C-alpha cells in the first residue's frame, strides 16, 4: 500500500537550498550577518549590565544585581533583530526571481508542472530559511537574557512570533520587486527603497501602521513613544498575547498574502521583459508628452538633446551624455522627484515644527542620505561590473586607455548624479541654517558671530557631504569593481557601507556611559568635557558619516552655546571652548578627506587587479641589476 507523503516534494526549494549551500557568498553573508548581530547584542548586553552594576568590577556584574536586567536588555535585543531583518531580508530575496530571468531559466520552470504559486512559495521558503537560521543563532542570547529574569514568557513568544512575520513581510516585498524587475540590481534597489519607505513611515514618521515591528514597539513602550492620539489601536494590539497577538498580526498576514498573489500574477507577465531601464522608459513617455504639448502650445525645450562627440575623456562622456542617470535633462527630473518632497517637508517642519527641536529634520536628512548612499553605491559598484556583464570591457581594455584613466573617467561621469543628490541635502542643511538663525540679534556683534558660525556650518556640511559621496563612490568601486556580476558587486558594496554606517551605533553607548560616569560633581566637568570631546572625535573618525555628524554637532554648538555648556565658572573660557570645537571639526574633516584620498589612491593603485589587466603606469617592470648587466652583455 502506498503511503501518502506528509511533506510534499519541493524540487525548487531543494534546488535553491542546494545552490545556496554551494555558494561561498552564502557563508560569507551569513557569517558577517551573524557576527554583526551578535556583536551588537553582546555590546548592548554589556552596556545594560554595566548600567545595572555601575561602578562595580566586571566580575561583580554577574551578581544578584543583574537579576531582572532581562526586562531592559530583552526589548533592546529584539529591536536589533528587527533591524537585522529589515537590513538583510531584501538582500536575500531580491535575486530570487530576477536571477532566473537574468540566466534565462525562468521559462524552463514554466514548462514544468510547478504552478506559479508553488514557484513563488518555494522561492519564498528558500530565502526565509537562511534568515531564520541567522535569527536562530541569537536565540541562545535571548534564552540567557530570559534567564536573568524580568521577561514575561508571553513577551518571549510574542518576539519570536513577530520576528517570524517581520521576516515574511520583508521577504514578500523583496520577492515582489524580484518578480517585477528584470535585473537583480534593479530589484535590490527597489526592495530597499520600499523597505526604507516603510521604515520612514512607521519608525520615523510614526504612522500607526500595524507592521510586526510597530506592534512590538507599541507593546513595549506604548503610547509615550507613539505620541498622543495614535496609541489606542496599536497599544492594544502590541500588549495582547496568545490568540490576541495572532489577531493583531492578521493585517500583516493579509498584506503578505496580497503581495504574494501579486507576485504570482507578475511572475508570468514580467517574465520576459527586456533589460531596458524602467526609468528611461518613463522619461521617454514624459518626453513624448512634453513634445506633443510643445507642438500644440508652442513651448520651448529648456534643455534640448545636444549632439556631442567625445573629446579626450570618452568614458566620462558616455557616462555623462548617454546614460539615463547622466543626461542633464533626465537628471533635472530626478532632482524634481527628490527636491519637491524634501522642500515640502522642510517647509512643513519650519512652519509647524519646534525651532529648538530638529529631530524631524534629522529624519529627513537620514532618509535622504539613505537614498543618496544607495544610489551612489549602486552606480559606482556597477561601473565596471556592468561592462563585464554586457561583454564590453574586453573591447575597452584592449584600447590605449590606461587603467587609471578608465577609473577616473568612470567616477568623473558620476559627478552630475552626485550634484543632483547633493541638492536636496543642501536644502535640508539650508533649512536647518534658517531654523537656527537668531533673526532678532543681527544688529549685535554676538548675533553676527552666530550668523557667521552658521554660514560656516553650511559650508562645512556641504563639503562633508560632497566628500562623503566621493568616499562612498570610491569604496563601492573598489569593492564592486572586480566582481563578475552586478548583483554581487552591489551586494558587496552596500553591505559594507551599511555595516560601516550601522556599526557607529555601537559607539554611542560609550559616550552615554561617559556622561553618566563623569558629571556627578561640579569640579569634574572640565575633565569630562575633554573626555567627551575625545570620544566624540574617535567616534567621528570611525563613522562613515563622521564629517557630516561633526558638522551637525557644530551647528548644535553654534546655536545653543554648548561651547559654554561645560565651562561656565571654570577657568576654561568660551573662546577656548569654541577653539576646541573648531579644532575637533577640522580634525574630523581632515581625517575624512584623507580617508577619501586614501581610498581613491588605493583603488587606482589596485586598478590592475580590478580590471584584470596589466598597465605600464601601474606595473612598471623593474629589472634587477644583474638582469640589466646581462642585457648589456648580450646587447
Amino acid at each position, binding site marked *: 500500500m502506498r503511503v501518502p507523503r506528509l511533506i510534499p516534494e519541493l524540487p525548487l526549494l531543494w534546488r535553491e537550498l542546494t545552490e545556496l549551500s554551494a555558494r561561498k557568498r552564502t557563508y560569507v553573508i551569513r557569517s558577517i550577518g551573524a557576527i554583526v548581530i551578535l556583536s551588537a547584542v553582546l555590546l548592548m548586553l554589556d552596556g545594560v549590565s554595566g548600567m545595572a552594576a555601575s561602578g562595580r568590577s566586571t566580575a561583580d556584574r554577574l551578581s544578584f544585581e543583574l537579576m531582572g536586567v532581562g526586562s531592559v536588555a530583552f526589548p533592546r535585543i529584539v529591536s536589533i533583530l528587527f533591524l537585522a531583518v529589515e537590513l538583510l531580508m531584501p538582500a536575500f530575496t531580491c535575486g530570487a526571481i530576477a536571477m532566473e530571468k537574468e540566466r534565462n531559466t525562468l521559462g524552463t520552470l514554466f514548462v514544468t508542472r510547478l504552478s506559479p504559486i508553488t514557484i513563488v512559495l518555494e522561492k519564498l521558503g528558500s530565502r526565509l530559511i537562511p534568515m531564520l537560521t541567522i535569527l536562530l543563532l541569537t536565540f541562545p542570547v535571548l534564552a540567557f537574557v530570559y534567564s536573568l529574569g524580568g521577561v514575561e514568557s508571553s513577551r518571549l513568544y510574542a518576539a519570536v512570533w513577530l520576528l517570524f512575520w517581520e521576516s515574511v513581510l520583508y521577504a514578500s516585498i523583496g520577492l515582489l520587486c524580484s518578480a517585477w524587475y528584470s535585473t537583480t540590481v534593479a530589484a535590490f534597489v527597489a526592495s530597499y527603497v520600499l523597505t526604507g519607505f516603510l521604515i520612514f513611515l512607521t519608525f520615523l514618521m510614526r504612522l500607526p501602521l500595524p507592521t510586526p515591528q510597530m506592534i512590538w514597539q507599541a507593546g513595549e513602550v506604548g503610547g509615550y513613544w507613539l505620541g498622543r492620539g495614535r496609541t489606542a489601536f496599536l497599544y492594544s494590539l502590541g500588549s495582547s498575547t496568545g490568540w490576541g497577538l495572532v489577531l493583531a498580526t492578521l493585517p500583516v498576514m493579509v498584506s503578505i498574502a496580497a503581495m504574494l498573489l501579486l507576485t504570482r500574477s507578475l511572475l508570468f507577465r514580467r517574465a520576459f521583459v527586456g533589460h531596458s531601464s524602467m526609468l528611461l522608459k518613463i522619461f521617454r513617455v514624459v518626453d513624448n508628452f512634453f513634445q506633443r504639448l510643445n507642438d500644440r502650445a508652442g513651448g520651448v525645450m529648456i534643455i534640448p538633446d545636444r549632439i556631442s562627440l567625445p573629446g579626450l575623456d570618452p*568614458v566620462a562622456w558616455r557616462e555623462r551624455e548617454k546614460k539615463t542617470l547622466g543626461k542633464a535633462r533626465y537628471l533635472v527630473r530626478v532632482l524634481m522627484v527628490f527636491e519637491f518632497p524634501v522642500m515640502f517637508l522642510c517647509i512643513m517642519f519650519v512652519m509647524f515644527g519646534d525651532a529648538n527641536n530638529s529631530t524631524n529634520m534629522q529624519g529627513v536628512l537620514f532618509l535622504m542620505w539613505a537614498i543618496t548612499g544607495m544610489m551612489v553605491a549602486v552606480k559606482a559598484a556597477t561601473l565596471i561590473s556592468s561592462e563585464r556583464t554586457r561583454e564590453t570591457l*574586453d573591447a*575597452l*581594455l584592449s584600447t590605449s*586607455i590606461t587603467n587609471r584613466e578608465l577609473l577616473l573617467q568612470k567616477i568623473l561621469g558620476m559627478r552630475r548624479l552626485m550634484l543632483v543628490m547633493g541638492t536636496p541635502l543642501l536644502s535640508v542643511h539650508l533649512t536647518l541654517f534658517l531654523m537656527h538663525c537668531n533673526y532678532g540679534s543681527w544688529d549685535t556683534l554676538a548675533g553676527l558671530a552666530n550668523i557667521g558660525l552658521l554660514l560656516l556650518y553650511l559650508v562645512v556640511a556641504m563639503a562633508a557631504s560632497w566628500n562623503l559621496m566621493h568616499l562612498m563612490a570610491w569604496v563601492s568601486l573598489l569593492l564592486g569593481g572586480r566582481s563578475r556580476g552586478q548583483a554581487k558587486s552591489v551586494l558587496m558594496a552596500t553591505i559594507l557601507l551599511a555595516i560601516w554606517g550601522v556599526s557607529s551605533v555601537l559607539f554611542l553607548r560609550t559616550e552615554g556611559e561617559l556622561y553618566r560616569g563623569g558629571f556627578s560633581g561640579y569640579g569634574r566637568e572640565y575633565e569630562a568635557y575633554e573626555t567627551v570631546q575625545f570620544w566624540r572625535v574617535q567616534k567621528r573618525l570611525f563613522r562613515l558619516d563622521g564629517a557630516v555628524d561633526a558638522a551637525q554637532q557644530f551647528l548644535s554648538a553654534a546655536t545653543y552655546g554648548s561651547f559654554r555648556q561645560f565651562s561656565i565658572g571654570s577657568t576654561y573660557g568660551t573662546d577656548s571652548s569654541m577653539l576646541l570645537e573648531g579644532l575637533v571639526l577640522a580634525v574630523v574633516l581632515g581625517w575624512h578627506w584623507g580617508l577619501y584620498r586614501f581610498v581613491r589612491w588605493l583603488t587606482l593603485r589596485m586598478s590592475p587587479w580590478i580590471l584584470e589587466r*596589466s598597465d605600464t603606469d601601474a606595473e612598471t617592470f623593474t629589472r634587477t641589476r644583474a638582469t640589466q648587466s646581462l642585457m648589456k652583455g648580450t646587447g
Partner: protein
Amino acid sequence: MSTADDSAGATPVQQQAGGRMAISLRNLWVSYGNFDAVKGISLEIPRGEVFGFIGPNGAGKSSTFRVLATLQRKFRGQAYVCGLDVLRQPQQVRDVMGFVPDFFGVYEDLTALEYLHFFAAAYKVPATRRKGVIDDVLTLTDMSHKAESPVDGLSRGMKQRLALARVLLHDPQVLLLDEPSSGLDPRARIEMRELLKALKEMGKTIVISSHILSELGQLCTRIGIVELGQLVAEGSLQEIYRRLQVMRLIHIRVENASAELEQRVREIPGVAKVETQVDRWAISLHEDQTSLAELHAGLVDAGTRLTMFQPEAMDMETAFMKLTEGRTI
C-alpha cells in the same frame, strides 16, 4: 609569469625578430588555479601573414588571444607583438594591435558613429583626424549607410563589421580576431571573408580563430591546430596534410566490377584501401606516393572501365579530426 631573468637574454634577439615577426610566443603557459589552459605553446608569425588558429572548445585559443591582447595578467613564458613585450610594454602593444573578442559587446545607447568616435578617443586618435579616419573605416567595412543607426539595432553581421571597424581606427599592424564568423549567416560570413581578404591585401597581419574550417582554408597562409592547450600542428595547409599523411578519397564507378578487378586495383602503388559501396568503390590514396593522374592511368591499365572518377576535396575537417581526436574539454 614571465620574469626578468627569463627574458633578459632574449630581449635583444626579440627586438631584432620584432622586425620580421608580428607575433612571437615562447613556451606560453596560462593557468587558472590548478587548471592549465595553455601548456607551453611556442609560435612565430611573420608580418603580413594570415594565421588560422584552430582547435576544439576549451583548447586554449581564447586564452592565447587574451595574452596577446594584453588582457591576461598572469602567464608564464614570453609573448611579443611586433617585437614588443606584452608584459612589459602593454600600452605600446595596444597601439599596434586590434582585438575583436569572441562575443558581441556593444554599447546599446550609442549610434554606430558615436561608437566609433568613442573608441577613436579611447585609442587616442587626435581629434582633428578622427572624422577622416572614421569615414575611411566606415567605407572600408561598408557601414557608411548605418552610421546613424543605434548599435543595439544592428544585425549580428553588422555588429561584427562594426567591431572590425573599431579595431581599424588606430591603424594597427596586427589584428587578433577571435571567432569573427561565429553565429553569422552565410551571406554575412562571405562578406566578412571578403573584408578580411581586403585587410590581408593591405598588409595587415591577421591572426584568426574559427570553427568554420573551410573558411580558414581559403583565407589563411598558415594554420596552427591547438588541443588541450598544446600546439599539435603548425604550418601551411599542404605541409600539414603531408605531415599527417592524410589520404585522398576517390570515388569511382566501374562497369566491369569483379572481385578479381578489385584485387588488381588494390595492388596499384599508393592505394591503401578499396571499400565497396552500393554503387561505387571508395579508394583511399596516399597522394604523396601516387598522384591522381597516376592513379587514373593505373586504373585504366588494370582494365577498369570507368564511368565516374571523383576525387574528394582534401579538407581541413579531416586534418582537424585526425589531429584532435575530438578530445574537447
